[in-house]
């Protein structure tokens, strides 16, 4: 069943239809929220809020357009709101400050070290660049869809993806030989 049909049923009160949408987009929504917030628990709270907000606003969804970008925009807004509200607490996994004081990737050789370095490199990027590269390279959305989600021109998205990729690749040069 298509997303638009599920959305229509969910709006009419079909709980199972909404559950199917949540199941389909849970992983994406959690990743997008984590891209903004860093902390996995905060990200889950934001994604949770985003899904409930989407349910309330289903009447505003245009079924002629893809559901994913519409939903992820709501989730991203929920995450941004949460980031603005929250006070500094517990260590953030994706802290930009930590990224700037990285101990040097050459000393670590295992995969976990690679993941840690990538986390930090990602955290060092401006939020919009993080979102752009994650939505493009991880979630597979087009520049146009990302532009609609982030409410910026398509050229800005292309530029953000470019800069984010260059920064990530630059910081991960030491792991150039790391291949799966």
């Amino acid at each position, binding site marked *: 069943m298509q997303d638009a049909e599920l959305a229509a049923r969910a709006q009419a009160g079909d709980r199972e239809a909404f559950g199917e949408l949540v199941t389909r987009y849970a992983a994406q929504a959690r990743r997008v929220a984590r891209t903004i917030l860093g902390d996995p628990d905060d990200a889950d709270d934001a994604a949770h809020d985003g899904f409930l907000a989407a349910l309330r606003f289903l009447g505003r969804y245009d079924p002629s357009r893809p559901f994913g970008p519409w939903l992820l925009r709501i989730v991203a807004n929920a995450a941004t709101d949460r980031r603005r509200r929250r006070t500094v607490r517990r260590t953030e996994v994706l802290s930009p400050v930590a990224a700037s004081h990285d101990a040097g990737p050459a000393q670590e050789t295992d995969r976990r070290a690679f993941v840690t370095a990538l986390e930090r490199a990602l955290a060092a990027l401006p939020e919009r660049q993080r979102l752009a590269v994650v939505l493009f390279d991880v979630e597979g959305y087009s520049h146009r869809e990302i532009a609609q989600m982030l409410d910026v021109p398509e050229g800005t998205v292309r530029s953000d993806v470019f*800069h984010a990729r260059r920064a990530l690749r630059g910081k991960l040069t030491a792991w150039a030989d790391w291949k799966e």
Partner: protein
Amino acid sequence: MHDDTAFDHRPDAQLGDALRAVLSASGDAAFVGRVMADVGEPSAWWEVLGLWVRPGLAAALFLSAAAGFWLGNAVRGSDSLIALDEALIAGTGNGTMTAFASTTRPPDVDVLFASNEND
């Protein structure tokens, strides 16, 4: 990761996989369960009706009180006592008779005698 231009319009699968590994968390099923728990079960009609009983009763009481107050004012207004001196001053001859004829209440005797004394 690709070494070609970062302006490549195609997703970088290798970078995407690496970022996915960083950002993905386990427990998608638990997350879905948590969201759906807050969505709640659809309510039966009598449960919905039950939720509206108190506000409905309060609204009905308020409307009844407002209607009673308005009706009381309207009745008092139409049956109010007409002072004879006002009727005599307001009109001459026919006006006085009209005032007498249009009221259902008797004239105030004191006012009537006072008016005659003045004449």
